[in-house]
C-alpha cells in the first residue's frame, strides 16, 4: 500500500499545541455556580469516567466552577498519579496550589522522578524497537511499534507526537482491520483535543475500510464480519465520532440524527471517552433544538437504540415528556435544574464537549418552544405567554420581536395592550398581487432584453477606443454633470 501525501500531514491544531494537554483545552471565561438550586454531584459524575478523560473533565470543572475547584483538582491529581503524564501533573498541582485558601499539597517528587525515569526508559525501548524493525523491513512489526509509540505519547500527553506516529503507521497497514485500528486511535486523540474539524476525514477512512472488509466475511468468518459484535462496536464508535463532528460544527440537526442512530455498545470507549448518559444528553438536546415535534416523536421516543441511552439519565426522559406535552415551563426548568435563568445548568455547562454549545442550544430550544406555543392561537396576551414560560414580560417581548423579525412567527405585537396577534393573510389577494407584480416585471425585463439585442445587432457596444489603454475609463462625461446641492 503506497502512502499518499495526505495521510502524513498533521492537522494544524495538533501541530500548534505541542504542549501539555491541559493548556490545549479551550477555556472560556465564565464561572458556574453550584449550590442547592443547581445540584451537581462531582464524585458520582467523575466515577463513571476512567483514563485520561476523567482527569481532563475534572480539570475543566475546576476551571469553571470555583466552589468545586479544590475537590475537582484533588480528584484530578489522584487520577494523574496513576498515569504517566508528568507535565500535566505539575501544571495541575501548581494550579491547585494557587487556589485561594487551598491547603497546599506537596509535589510528590518521588512520583515525578519515578515516572520520568519510566517514561524515558519506555521511550528508548520503543524507539530502539522501531529502528530494529525498520532495518529488518518487517511491515507488521513496524506498524505495531509505531502504534505502541503512538499510545505511549498519548499517555504522556504529547498529542502531536502521538498523532504523528499513528499516521506513520498508516503506511504499514496491510489490511482493512489495521486501517480501522489506526483510525480509531486517531479519533480518540482528536476527540480529546476537541479537534472536531478533522474528525470527518478519519471517520470516512474508517468507514471505507469497514466496507472493504465486508467481502472478507465469506472467506474469513470472524472478527470483521457484518453483524459481528466487533463490527457493531466499531460502527458505534464511528457514529459517535461523526455526531461529535457535526455538533462541533454547529449542525445540530445532523448531530441529532447521528446520535439517534447509534448502536448500544461502545466497546472500550465506554467510560474512556464518553458515557451513555452523555450520549443521552447530547442527543436529546440537539434533537430538541433542531427537530420538529413529530420528528422528535418518531426518531427519539420510538427509537429502540436510543431508548437504551435514555434509560441512563432519567431526567432527560422527563424533559422529553414535558416537551411533548407542551409543558414548556417544565422543559425550561428541568433544563436549568430548578433555576430561573436559562444559562446556568451545572450539568451541561461542566461537560467538556457540551459547554461551548449550551447557550446556542438553549436559545434554539426556547425559540422552538415559543413558536410551538403560539401555533394554535390567533391572539394571546403576552403576560400569559410570559407566565407559561416563566419569563419576565419585557424579556418575552424582546424575544418575540426577534422571532418576528426572523420570520419564525407570523404575527404582530399590539404594544399598547400587550397582545400578540397572528397575521391573517388572504391567499387570493396575495396571489393576485404576486401575479400582477410578476407580469409587470417580466414585461420590463423582456423590453430591456429586446433593446439590448437591438444594440448588439447595431453593434453599439462599449469598446476601448483604438490606440488607448485597455479599459475605456478615460471617457469622461463632458455634458453637464450638475451638482445636486442646489436641487434640494
Amino acid at each position: 500500500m503506497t502512502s499518499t501525501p495526505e495521510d502524513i500531514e498533521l492537522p494544524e491544531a495538533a501541530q500548534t499545541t505541542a504542549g501539555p494537554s491541559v493548556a490545549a483545552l479551550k477555556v472560556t471565561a465564565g464561572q458556574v455556580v453550584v449550590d442547592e438550586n443547581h445540584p451537581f454531584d462531582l464524585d458520582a459524575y467523575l466515577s463513571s469516567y476512567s483514563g485520561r478523560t476523567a482527569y481532563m473533565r475534572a480539570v475543566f470543572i475546576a476551571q469553571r466552577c470555583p466552589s468545586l475547584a479544590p475537590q475537582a483538582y484533588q480528584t484530578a491529581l489522584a487520577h494523574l498519579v496513576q498515569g504517566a503524564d508528568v507535565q500535566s501533573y505539575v501544571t495541575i498541582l501548581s494550579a491547585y496550589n494557587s487556589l485561594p485558601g487551598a491547603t497546599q499539597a506537596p509535589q510528590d517528587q518521588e512520583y515525578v522522578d519515578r515516572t520520568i525515569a519510566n517514561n524515558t526508559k519506555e521511550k528508548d525501548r520503543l524507539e530502539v524497537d522501531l529502528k530494529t524493525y525498520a532495518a529488518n523491513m518487517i511491515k507488521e512489526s513496524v506498524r505495531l511499534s509505531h502504534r505502541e509509540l503512538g499510545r505511549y505519547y498519548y499517555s504522556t500527553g504529547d498529542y502531536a507526537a502521538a498523532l504523528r506516529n499513528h499516521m506513520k503507521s498508516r503506511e504499514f497497514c496491510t489490511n482493512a482491520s489495521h486501517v480501522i485500528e489506526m483510525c480509531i486511535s486517531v479519533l480518540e486523540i482528536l476527540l480529546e483535543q476537541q479537534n472536531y474539524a478533522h474528525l470527518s476525514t478519519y471517520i470516512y477512512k474508517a468507514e471505507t475500510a469497514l466496507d472493504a472488509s465486508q467481502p472478507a466475511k465469506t472467506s474469513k468468518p470472524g472478527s470483521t464480519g457484518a453483524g459481528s459484535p466487533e463490527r457493531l462496536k466499531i460502527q458505534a464508535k464511528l457514529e459517535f465520532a461523526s455526531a461529535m463532528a457535526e455538533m462541533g460544527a454547529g449542525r445540530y440537526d445532523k448531530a441529532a440524527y447521528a446520535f439517534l442512530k447509534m448502536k448500544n455498545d461502545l466497546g472500550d470507549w465506554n467510560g474512556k471517552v464518553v458515557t451513555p448518559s452523555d450520549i443521552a444528553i447530547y442527543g436529546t438536546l440537539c434533537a430538541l433544538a433542531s427537530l420538529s415535534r413529530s420528528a422528535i416523536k418518531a426518531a427519539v421516543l420510538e427509537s429502540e437504540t436510543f431508548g437504551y441511552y435514555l434509560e441512563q439519565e432519567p431526567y432527560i426522559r422527563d424533559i422529553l415528556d414535558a416537551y411533548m406535552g407542551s409543558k414548556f415551563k417544565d422543559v425550561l426548568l428541568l433544563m436549568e435544574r430548578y433555576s430561573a435563568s436559562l444559562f446556568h445548568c451545572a450539568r451541561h455547562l461542566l461537560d467538556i464537549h457540551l459547554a461551548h454549545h449550551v447557550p446556542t442550544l438553549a436559545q434554539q430550544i426556547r425559540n422552538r418552544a415559543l413558536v410551538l406555543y403560539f401555533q394554535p392561537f390567533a391572539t394571546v396576551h403576552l403576560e400569559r405567554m410570559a407566565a407559561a414560560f416563566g419569563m419576565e414580560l419585557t424579556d418575552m417581548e424582546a424575544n418575540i420581536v426577534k422571532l418576528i423579525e426572523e420570520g419564525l412567527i407570523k404575527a404582530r405585537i399590539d404594544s399598547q395592550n400587550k397582545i400578540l396577534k397572528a397575521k391573517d393573510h388572504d391567499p387570493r389577494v396575495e396571489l393576485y398581487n404576486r401575479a400582477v407584480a410578476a407580469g409587470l416585471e417580466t414585461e420590463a425585463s423582456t423590453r430591456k432584453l429586446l433593446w439590448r439585442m437591438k444594440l448588439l445587432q447595431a453593434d453599439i457596444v462599449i469598446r476601448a477606443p483604438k490606440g488607448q489603454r485597455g479599459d475605456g475609463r478615460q471617457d469622461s462625461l463632458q455634458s453637464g454633470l450638475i451638482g445636486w446641492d442646489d436641487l434640494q
Partner: protein
Amino acid sequence: MSTLSSLNDVVTISHSNVPPPNIANALKSLVKREVGDPLLASLGPENSDPLAHLHQTAHTLAVLYILSARLNTQGAAPVPFEYIDSFCANFDPDQARLAPERVTWLAKGIEDLADRNQNPRLAIGPIRNLMSRYAPSKGFFTSLHVILLRICVKSECWNHALPILDVPLSDVDKVISDVNYLDNLTYYYLGGVIYAVLKRWKQAEEFFEMCVAAPGNIASAVQLEAFKKLTLVQLISYGKTRPLPKYVTFTTSRVLKQQPYQTFAKNYPNSSVALGQILEKDLAHFTADGNVGLMKQAIRHAPRWIVRRLTDTYVTLSVAEISKAIASDVAAASTPEAIQEATLLILSMIEQNEIYATLTPTPDNPAAAIVTFRDPPPPKYFDPAVLEKIVRDAQGNNTQLGLLDRDVGKSRAYLNKVNLASKARMVLLGQWAVKDKEGGAMAFDDMAELEMERLRGDWD
C-alpha cells in the same frame, strides 16, 4: 454625378430633377473637400442669401447642408431663429435621412446658437420637432435624443424632457442615425438624472440600471457614475439596494464593487445622525461626484423605511417608541421637537399612502399618541382590465422577439453557419463510410439516413 463648386451649383442641382440620393452624394463629396463647408457657409454674390432660393421641404438636403455649415462655422452669416424653427417643422424626413451626420451636426449647431444667446431653452422646440419627424418611428433612437436631453438638463427644463423619456426606446439602426455606445450610455444616464430630479424614483432606477447594463467588453466612466446614482436611488425607492441583474458584464460589475457608497448603503436605514456622519466623512468625494443632494434626500427618507419595518412587527405603537426607533439615542428621542417630528412624519406617510395607519391623538400628551397599523386594503374586486393589459404587453413583446428571431434566421451570417455545419457533417459521414468499407455500402446508407433525419429535425 456632378461635382459642385459653388453655391450656384448647389441651388441649381436642388432645383433640377436629380434624384435626392444623387444630390446627397454630391453634397457629401463637396464637404469632403476642404473648401466644402466654408463654401456652404458663405453668402452668394452681392451678399444674397442662398437660402432664399431654396425651399425647405423640396430642397431639404441643400438647406440642411447650408444651415449646418452656417451654424457651425465661425463668422458665418447668422440665420434668423424663425427660419430654423420653420425648417425643423417643414423639412422632408426622407431626404434628411440620406445625410444623418449632417442632421446631428445641425442639431449641435442649434444648441450652440441657443447657448450663445444665453437661452438654451430656445433650442428645445426646434430640436424636438427635428427629432420627432426625423425618427422613422416612435422609440427609434437617434443622436438627437441625446442632444435634446442634454439641453433640457442644461436649461433645467425638466418637464420638457418627459414626453421623450416616456417613450421606451425600441429600435436603433446606424444607417438612419449615427449613434455610438456613448450616446446610448449618455441617454440613459441623463434620463435617470432627469427622473431623479422630478423625484420619479422608480423610473430613475430603471434608466440608471439600463445604463449600467449596456452590453460591452469593458466598463465606462459613465456607467460608474450611473451606478453610484443607482445605489442612492434604490435606497430611496426600496430602502435597500438590489443586486445587479445577471447580464451586467463581468468587468463592469467588478469595477463597480469597490465604492465608498457601499458603507452608506449598508448602514441604511439607520438613524439620520449615523448616516449624516458617513456623509461627512467622505464629503469631498461625494461632492466631487455631485451626489450630495441625492444623498441628503436619501437620509431624509431613512426614517420612513424604519417606520415601514416597524409596521411588519407591530400593530400598535406609541409615538414615543417610534421616535426612539428613528433617532440615534434615547435622550434625543424624548424631546418635544423629536416627538413632533415623528408625529409629522407619520402623518405625511399616511397621507402619501406609504403606510396604512390611524393616529389617535392625545392632545395633552403628544408622546403617548397611539398609531395603529392596518393591513393595506385589498382591491375591491380583481380588475380584469389590469391583468389583460399586462398580458397584452407581454404578448406584444413576445411577437417582437419572434420577429427578431426570424430576422436572425434569414440573415446571411446564420445561413452561412448552418451551411458550414451541415457540410462538415457530410464530410464526417464520408469519412465513416471510408473506414467502414468492410461493412459495405449498407452501413453508409443507414448512417446517411440517420443524418438526414437529424438535419430535417433541425430545420423544423
